[in-house]
């Protein structure tokens, strides 16, 4: 039976004085708690986790990134304000807004093939999401991190120091964005979207022909109540007005395409 995560944390702290190890509880029913390691000694700690005879976490199964963007948090605190007149102190609710700083997180799921236990979940957190995005690479400790850390670099933009070959893995090299971040905006190619709703509808609207704005939408809407009538009023370019869509033969003007 494997020792508990608290024991692992305490042993790590004892072995690495001055190191940071935080236990992060998982409130869900899975109860897979994790350890957040401080960046300065993380690689040595990983080595310890791998080689310690009681743990022998020789197998790093899963490496992934998580993006936690900046969040605005409104906190209300109750403050007792003493009455200057000398009466009973009043309780006043104060609202403070603060920006919770965002960060990127790399999560490692470690198992032991030798002792057949696990998982021990290890997290590394970056300072922020823009310039302090370097964490130590675990590829020298576990080879299985090689491609998965490259993937985290590609999709989340976490840089791994000491990684032997840190290049984009899934997207092409010229690509500049990190698409798995929550604030990534996709390229705009919403041209033929016959069944749009939600965000897709918003994006598709940019491609609607300019004439559509001029066409009174109320008239189209009225036609919907009597589909039979709508079929009669087919203007030349409209192919199928029963469905409420206008299919025009002419393509929407495109820009900047040679």
């Amino acid at each position, binding site marked *: 039976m494997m020792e508990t995560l608290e024991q692992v944390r305490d042993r790590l702290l004892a072995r690495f004085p001055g190191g940071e190890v935080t236990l992060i509880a998982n409130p869900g029913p899975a109860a897979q708690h994790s350890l957040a390691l401080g960046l300065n000694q993380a690689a040595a700690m990983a080595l310890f986790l791998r080689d310690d005879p009681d743990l022998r976490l020789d197998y790093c199964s899963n490496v992934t990134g998580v993006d936690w963007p900046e969040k605005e948090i409104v906190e209300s605190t109750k403050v007792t304000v003493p009455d200057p007149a000398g009466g009973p102190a009043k309780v006043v609710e104060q609202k403070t807004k603060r920006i919770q700083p965002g960060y990127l997180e790399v999560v490692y799921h470690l198992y032991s093939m030798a002792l057949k236990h696990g998982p021990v979940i290890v997290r590394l957190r970056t300072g922020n999401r823009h310039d302090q995005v370097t964490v130590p690479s675990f590829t020298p400790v576990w080879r299985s991190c090689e491609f998965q850390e490259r993937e985290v670099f590609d999709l989340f933009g976490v840089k791994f120091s000491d990684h032997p070959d840190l290049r984009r893995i*899934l*997207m*092409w*090299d*010229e*690509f*500049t*964005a990190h*698409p798995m971040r929550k604030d*990534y905006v*996709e*390229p705009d*190619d919403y*041209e*033929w*979207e*016959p069944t*749009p*709703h939600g965000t*897709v*509808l918003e994006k*598709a609207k940019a*491609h*609607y*022909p300019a004439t*559509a704005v001029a*066409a009174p*939408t109320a008239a*189209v*809407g009225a036609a*919907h109540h009597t589909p039979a009538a709508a079929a009669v009023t087919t203007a030349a370019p409209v*192919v199928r007005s029963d469905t*409420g*869509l*206008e*299919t*025009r*033969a*002419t*393509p*929407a003007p*495109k820009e*900047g*395409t*040679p």
Partner: protein
Amino acid sequence: MTDAARPEPTEPAPGAHLVTEAERDELRRHGILLTKLEEIVNLGRSKSVWPLQFGLACCAIEMIAASMARFDIARFGSEVFRPSPRQADLLIVSGTVTKKMAPQVVRLWNQMPEPKYCIAMGACAISGGPFKQGYNVLKGIDRFIPVDVYIPGCPPRPEALLHGLLQLQEQIRTQKSSGPNVARHLRPGDRCDYAVPEFGERDLEPPANPAVWQAPSIVRNEKA
């Protein structure tokens, strides 16, 4: 040929068939095949469409299944899957075309000799399918190369692929070597050279080839 077999004499358009369809059917019944060079060439072409051995994703497995014993694409003369585009007539785009893959697909298409045909097999090849909203997925291969037959399904059954192939054969059989409805590869200006997109910083450059991709625009109403 008797007078009775002749249909109503209508005014013959210039260049119309000297022998009508009905007459030719009658002759065929008697064992005489009367045909045109164009038709016999088309017949030969349609019965030996050699596909490129080119699998992209899930649909490729169904394409392989279609070439195996159960569905046996060999019965339609298309079992010769060629590994080289130089020897192939048919590009079966079988699966999701990602933006990273799109330039390669166009390059393969450019390398195939004319006359060549393209089948978009499965939802992903037609429109990006279920992966349409992904940032790296091309919303349909017809943004870059002309597609002859679209086979919807995710993935289409092997029978559906065979059905699509039969449609393509029908199209090849009826293609014209001259006139206004001339086949695509005989049109003046068709140079078998489709623009290969480049990798950009955010997207392909250009994101679609306007010479090929002419989507109608759709306007949807505001919902309540």
